[in-house]
């Protein structure tokens, strides 16, 4: 299994598509970080200035791109080896199926999750450099929320792993990611049901409860409640672990009995 992971890491480092994906992701993050500056967010009147901390409170809209990029990374790590029959040769040369599966799945989940978090972090850093941090929320709050996104990201990536092992074709996984996000958007998943889907959980983690105060001369101020409540944290952890285990188990079972055709 160690050798497969090493081989995968080598392959990832050499794969041109993944380099392009990384480059595309980085460019997109910088663009997202800069777009408000280019729109004049830093030139507004006092009280209306848009800063990186403001951006953090509404960055969940941008996770649609992050999820798509993660699906591409997972698809290439898990499904690309079916195209050139590398996976078949691995099995024929005596590698156990579960080793072949978990080496790819584990690596894909870790790398894609890191990639997703780095994408969000990169856009926040770019925004900070362009417009300053501001005082809407603290750095610690933003960091805590960002770290918590690792759980729904992992869950989502496990789902993509399952899809990659079912379809065995890289291009189907990003298509599925797009369809899943669209369906979740259309269904307006919320409340207690948020935790049934990874996209819903992700939205929940990045949702900042807020309230307003205002004056007649000073306009309104939005006050965000920094930390997610303990119920959200607990349900995020429990639901993510449950679905990570479920998706990986289903994927492993399917791969175990697969004729690799």
């Amino acid at each position, binding site marked *: 299994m160690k050798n497969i992971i090493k081989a995968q890491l080598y392959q990832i480092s050499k794969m041109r598509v993944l380099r392009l994906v990384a480059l595309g992701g980085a460019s997109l993050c910088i663009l997202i970080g800069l777009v408000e500056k280019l729109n004049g967010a830093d030139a507004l009147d006092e009280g209306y200035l848009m800063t990186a901390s403001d951006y953090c409170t509404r960055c969940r809209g941008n996770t649609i791109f992050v999820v798509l990029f993660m699906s591409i990374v997972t698809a290439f790590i898990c499904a690309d080896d079916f195209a050139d029959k590398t996976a078949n040769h691995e099995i024929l040369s005596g590698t156990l199926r579960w080793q072949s599966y978990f080496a790819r799945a584990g690596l894909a989940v870790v790398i894609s999750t890191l990639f997703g978090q780095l994408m969000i972090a990169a856009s926040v850093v770019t925004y900070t450099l362009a417009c300053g941090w501001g*005082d809407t929320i603290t750095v610690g709050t933003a960091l805590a929320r960002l770290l918590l996104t690792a759980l729904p990201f992992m869950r989502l990536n496990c789902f993509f792993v399952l899809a990659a092992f*079912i379809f065995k074709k890289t291009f189907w996984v990003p298509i599925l990611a797009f369809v899943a996000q669209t*369906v*979740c958007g259309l*269904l307006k*998943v919320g*409340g*207690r*049901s948020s935790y*049934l*889907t990874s996209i*819903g959980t992700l939205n929940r983690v990045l949702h900042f409860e807020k*309230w*307003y*105060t*205002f*004056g*007649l*001369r*000073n306009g309104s*101020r939005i*006050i965000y409640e920094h930390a997610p409540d303990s119920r959200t944290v607990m349900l995020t952890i429990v639901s993510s672990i449950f679905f990570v285990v479920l998706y990986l*188990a*289903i994927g492993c*079972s*399917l791969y175990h*009995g*697969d*004729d690799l055709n």
Partner: protein
Amino acid sequence: MEKFDITLIALGIVFSIGGMITAVHAEKIRSCKWRLYYLAPLLTGIICAAAGGFDICMISAYIGMIILLAGLFKPEKKVRMISSVTAAVLVITALPVCMFSGKYHYINYEQDFEKGFAKLKAHYVLSEDKEINWEELHDKYLPRFRSAATNNDAAENYTAWTQMCAQFNDLHVCFSADEEVVKEAEEKAAGNDFGLVIATLSDGRTVAIQTDDTLKSKGIHDGTEIISWNGKKPSEADKDSDYYYMKPFADIDNKRFYEGWFAAGTGGDTAEVVYIDDDGNEQAITLSSLGRPYIDRYKDAYNKVSDGLEAGHMSFTKLNDTTACLRIKMMKYDSASENKDDHSNMKNEIRDSVLQLKEEGIKDIIIDIRCNSGGSGDMVLNIAELFAPEGEHYYVTDAYWDKETQSYVKQQDGTYKTDGDIMYSGENILGDDGRIVLLVCDQSVSASDHLTHVLNDLDNVTVIGFTEPSGSAQGCSMLSLESGMMTYSSSLMLNRDGSIFIDSGTDMQSGNGVDIKVPFDEKAVNEIFAENNDYLMDYALEYLSNTD
């Protein structure tokens, strides 16, 4: 049942039957792809549950969809057959459970209350000034919400919220729910209709109003003095009505005006009434319920006393040769005024209309803001600018918001730190001879409280009403809960000295008043209920003509 739950149950049955067929078929045509079939129910189940909302009554259906996964992990005919049959049974079981359980799509009112109460406690801006005892309030109302949760009673939940909100003596603290729920709760709380409403006259006597024709033969008509209701003075009998505790008043004078109004719904199927007949003799009678809810009669009476001129919002109506009425039903005008606080269209239209009316001989304007539900403070500013005499005038003072502590700053003398006065320049479009009368009622709330306060400071304005305006003028926010929507005062508005603008403290005396409090007497009762006249409007016209 919810459509997504029905879909889930229907698909669950289809998948279960399909699972059995696939189990047999997979024995004949061997392929690992058959296993994917047993994954589909799980994914379908997740989508349906996410879309329709997770519900505990559907739990057997969810388990059924998960059990079908056994066919994926163990691709054997026997396992697949057993799991499919089990899944079918479990999925079908969800149907009667949902249909007959009182907990289907159930809202936990206790949790909902805890959430709303915590937010209210954290963000209610007049907490100190009104000396709200949060612990006491929580302990008093929690059992009510617990009971509503146990009985899954939406109306009881609404009643509990409304009664708790009324304790703040702030009309900005209120709870709204579905129309049906509100109707049910109000009907239940207000009691039975016995054919009359009891109102208190300015001299303290309590009389029948909005009287049903069936009572006339018994000697009770509009204006008949009612001595007691079920052995109690009407103001005491009020306290037997649940609806009495649902009506909020910020000002004690307004509360006193409505003494007795809640009494005539109390009692069971009959009520013992003592009244003075037309010959001046005291009579006792037992009234039977008319089998209708009292709330309808109460609201009809209330509307007759309080509602404004029946005219379009922001429209001018010529009342006589020299007077016109501007009816303002809310402090919103168009999408630009509502969304961008751009009131230029409204201002231009009012200016043009007034100038046109002046050319037609109109000298005085009655601004009718009775039952005005409030809205934008900026709109108030723009209206005041039009009618105020030329020169600088003061409106209100913004409170200083401390970004560090995320709160307003209360100083040692009990006042708040201010952050600049709001001033405006008068245009005096009506001219020096023009006079303005402002008509208000106890439901002239929020921004209409502001308008009353601002115009009341001007020499050319007279404020007239049976009662004062509501006395609730802080900026408010909304909070969405599972069972409804709560609003509360969240933004401070101050006087120049840093004291609270308009809203009352523990004394229930608001900072808003009227120049002329019109007596609610026998003449008023007769004009309103017998003649169907707008007594307050007629009074204003008479006032203008007498002071010409």
